[in-house]
C-alpha cells in the first residue's frame, strides 16, 4: 500500500510541475490548473489510505470546513480583490506548515537534528508567511489603513529574528522541547511576520505577497522533509524557487530591490524629501473631456487601480468602442505593476472583454506617447509620475513609468486631489498639458459617454 501511495505522490508532483509549465501561455494555462486540481484531489484521497492513521472524523470535518469556506469566498470575491485573496490563501498554507511543525513538537516526534532543524526553519518561515499575509490582506482589504512603523524598525526586526533563531536552536537541541519554549518561539515568529509587513506601503505589496508565497513554498518543502513526503518537498521547493524568481521580476519592474521593499518601505513620510513641485492642478469638465477625445486621432487609455476599484472597466471599454466608432484610434497601455499585482490589470480588462490586440505593454508603447493626442489616465498614479525619471531624491526615482506626460494632452480621472497610493505627490498633475477630471471613474466616465454620444448628432 505504502509503495502505491508513494507512486501516486510521484505522479502528483509531476502533474503539478506540468501544470505550472502550462501557465506560460494563456492558451494552455487553464488546462494546466485543472490538471493540477485533479492531482490535488488524488493526493488527498490516497493520503486517507496511509497506514496507521486515525482521527478520520476530525480530518474530514476540517477538510470540509476549510475547503468549503475557501471555495465559497474564492467564488464570490470580486476580480479587483484578487490580490488580497491570494495573500490570505497563501497565509493559510504558511500557517498549515507551521502547525505541522507545532504538532511534531507537541508529539515529541524527534527525527534527528537535521529534521528538527528543518522543522524549526519551516515553522519560522511558515509563521512569518502566515502573519505577514494576514497583515497584507488587512491592508489591501482596507481593514488596516495606516502603515505603522516602529521607531528603530529594522533593529526590532533583526532583534526578533535573532530571538526566533535562538529559541529555534533551543528547540532543536532540547530533543523534546518544553511547551512554553515552543509557544514562545511561535509567538516571536508570528510577531516578526506582522512587524516586518506592517510598515510596507501598498505600492510594494505585490512584491511582498509574492515573497511570502515563496516563503510558504519553502516552509512546505521543509516540513515535507520532516514528514518524509517527497510530494511536499517537490511542490514546496518548486513554488519556493519560482516564487523567488517572480518576486525578482516584479521588484525589477518597479526598480525596487527586494531589500529596499522590506527595509526602507515607501511611505508618505519617507516621500517628504522630494523636490517641491510647482504649478497648479487644472480641472476640466466631462463635456470638455468628451470633446477633446472625440476629435483626437489617437487616445491611449492608462488604467490603474482606481478604475478597477470603481469597477469602471466595462464603462471604459464602452467609451473606447464609442470613440472608435467615431474614427478615433483607442488603445490601452499597461504598466507592469498596474493594479495591485503584475498582470492584475490584464485580468481586469480581460474580464471587461477588451481584446488583447488593443492592450500594450509599457515597452511597446512608451516611445509612441509624443505622437498621442490624448492620454487618459484613470485612477493610476505612481506608474505615470514623471518624478521617477527626474527627481533623484524621490523614493520612486528610477522606477520605469509610462511616459504619458509626453502626450499632447493628458486627462487624469481621479476622485480627489490627494496623493497616490504610495503617498508621493504626482508632478504630472501640475504640468501644463495635464487636466484633472474629478470624480469616481464609474460615474465620470458615464458622463463622458453621454457627452460623446451627444457629440455624434
Amino acid at each position, binding site marked *: 500500500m505504502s509503495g502505491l501511495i508513494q507512486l501516486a505522490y510521484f505522479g502528483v508532483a509531476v502533474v503539478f*510541475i506540468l501544470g505550472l509549465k502550462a501557465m506560460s501561455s494563456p492558451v494552455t494555462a487553464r488546462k494546466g490548473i485543472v490538471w493540477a486540481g485533479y492531482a490535488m484531489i488524488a493526493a488527498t484521497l490516497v493520503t486517507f489510505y496511509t497506514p496507521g492513521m486515525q482521527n478520520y472524523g476530525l480530518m474530514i470535518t476540517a477538510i470540509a470546513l476549510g475547503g468549503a469556506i475557501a471555495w465559497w469566498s474564492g467564488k464570490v470575491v470580486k476580480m479587483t480583490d484578487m490580490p488580497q485573496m491570494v495573500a490570505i490563501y497563501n497565509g493559510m498554507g504558511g500557517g498549515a506548515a507551521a502547525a505541522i511543525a507545532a504538532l511534531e513538537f507537541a508529539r515529541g516526534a524527534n527525527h534527528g537534528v537535521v529534521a528538527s532543524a528543518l522543522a524549526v526553519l519551516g515553522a519560522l518561515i511558515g509563521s512569518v508567511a502566515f502573519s505577514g499575509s494576514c497583515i497584507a490582506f488587512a491592508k489591501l482589504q482596507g481593514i488596516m489603513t495606516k502603515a505603522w512603523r516602529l521607531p528603530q524598525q529594522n533593529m526590532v526586526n533583526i532583534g526578533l529574528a535573532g530571538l526566533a533563531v535562538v529559541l529555534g536552536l533551543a528547540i532543536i537541541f532540547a530533543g523534546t522541547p518544553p511547551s512554553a519554549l515552543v509557544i514562545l518561539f511561535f509567538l516571536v515568529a508570528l510577531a516578526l511576520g506582522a512587524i516586518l509587513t506592517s510598515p510596507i506601503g501598498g505600492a510594494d505589496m505585490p512584491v511582498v505577497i509574492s515573497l511570502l508565497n515563496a516563503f510558504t513554498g519553502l516552509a512546505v518543502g521543509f516540513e515535507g522533509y520532516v514528514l518524509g513526503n517527497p510530494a511536499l518537498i517537490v511542490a514546496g521547493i518548486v513554488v519556493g524557487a519560482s516564487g523567488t524568481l517572480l518576486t525578482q*521580476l516584479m521588484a525589477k519592474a518597479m526598480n525596487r530591490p527586494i531589500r529596499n521593499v522590506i527595509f526602507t518601505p515607501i511611505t508618505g513620510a519617507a516621500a517628504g524629501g522630494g523636490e517641491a513641485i510647482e504649478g497648479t492642478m487644472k480641472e476640466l469638465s466631462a463635456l470638455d473631456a468628451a470633446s477633446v477625445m472625440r476629435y483626437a486621432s489617437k487616445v491611449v487609455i492608462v488604467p490603474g487601480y482606481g478604475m478597477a476599484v470603481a469597477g469602471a472597466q466595462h464603462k471604459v471599454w464602452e467609451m473606447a468602442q464609442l470613440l472608435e466608432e467615431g474614427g478615433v484610434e483607442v488603445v490601452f497601455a499597461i504598466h507592469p505593476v498596474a493594479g495591485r499585482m503584475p498582470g492584475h490589470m490584464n485580468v481586469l480588462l480581460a474580464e471587461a472583454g477588451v481584446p488583447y490586440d488593443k492592450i500594450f505593454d509599457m515597452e511597446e508603447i512608451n516611445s509612441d506617447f509624443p505622437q498621442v493626442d490624448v492620454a487618459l489616465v484613470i485612477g493610476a498614479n505612481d506608474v505615470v509620475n514623471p518624478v521617477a525619471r527626474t527627481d533623484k531624491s524621490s523614493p520612486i526615482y528610477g522606477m520605469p513609468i509610462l511616459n504619458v506626460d509626453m502626450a499632447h494632452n493628458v486627462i487624469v480621472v481621479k476622485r480627489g486631489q490627494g496623493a497616490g497610493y504610495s503617498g508621493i505627490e504626482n508632478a504630472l498633475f501640475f504640468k501644463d498639458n495635464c487636466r484633472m477630471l474629478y470624480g469616481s471613474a464609474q460615474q465620470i466616465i458615464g458622463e463622458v459617454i453621454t457627452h460623446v454620444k451627444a457629440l455624434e448628432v
Partner: protein
Amino acid sequence: MEGFGAIYIFMLAAFTGYEVISRVPVILHTPLMSGSNFVHGVVLVGAMVVLGEADPADPVQLAIGFVAVFLGAANAAGGYVVTERMLAMFKSKTGGAQ
C-alpha cells in the same frame, strides 16, 4: 530519505521551479502567483498525515492538527478557485485575437 538524497531533491526542484516559470509572460503573473499558491496547498497532505498520527486522547494535539488540516484545505481550495476564475477570463479570446 536521508541526508544527501533530500538535498538532491531540493536542488533539482529549485532548478525546475526556476526554469518552469522563467518564460511566463507578464499578463499571466497574477494567475501564476495564485497558481503556485495553489500548488503549495499540497501541504494539506502533510497536515492530514500529522493529524492522523496525533494522539486521539490529547486535545492539544488534535486541536493543532485540526488547524493544520483546516488551513491546508483552505489554501488548496481557495488557491484553485481564484486561479481557475482568473484563467477563465483569458479563455474566450485565446483563439482569435492572439
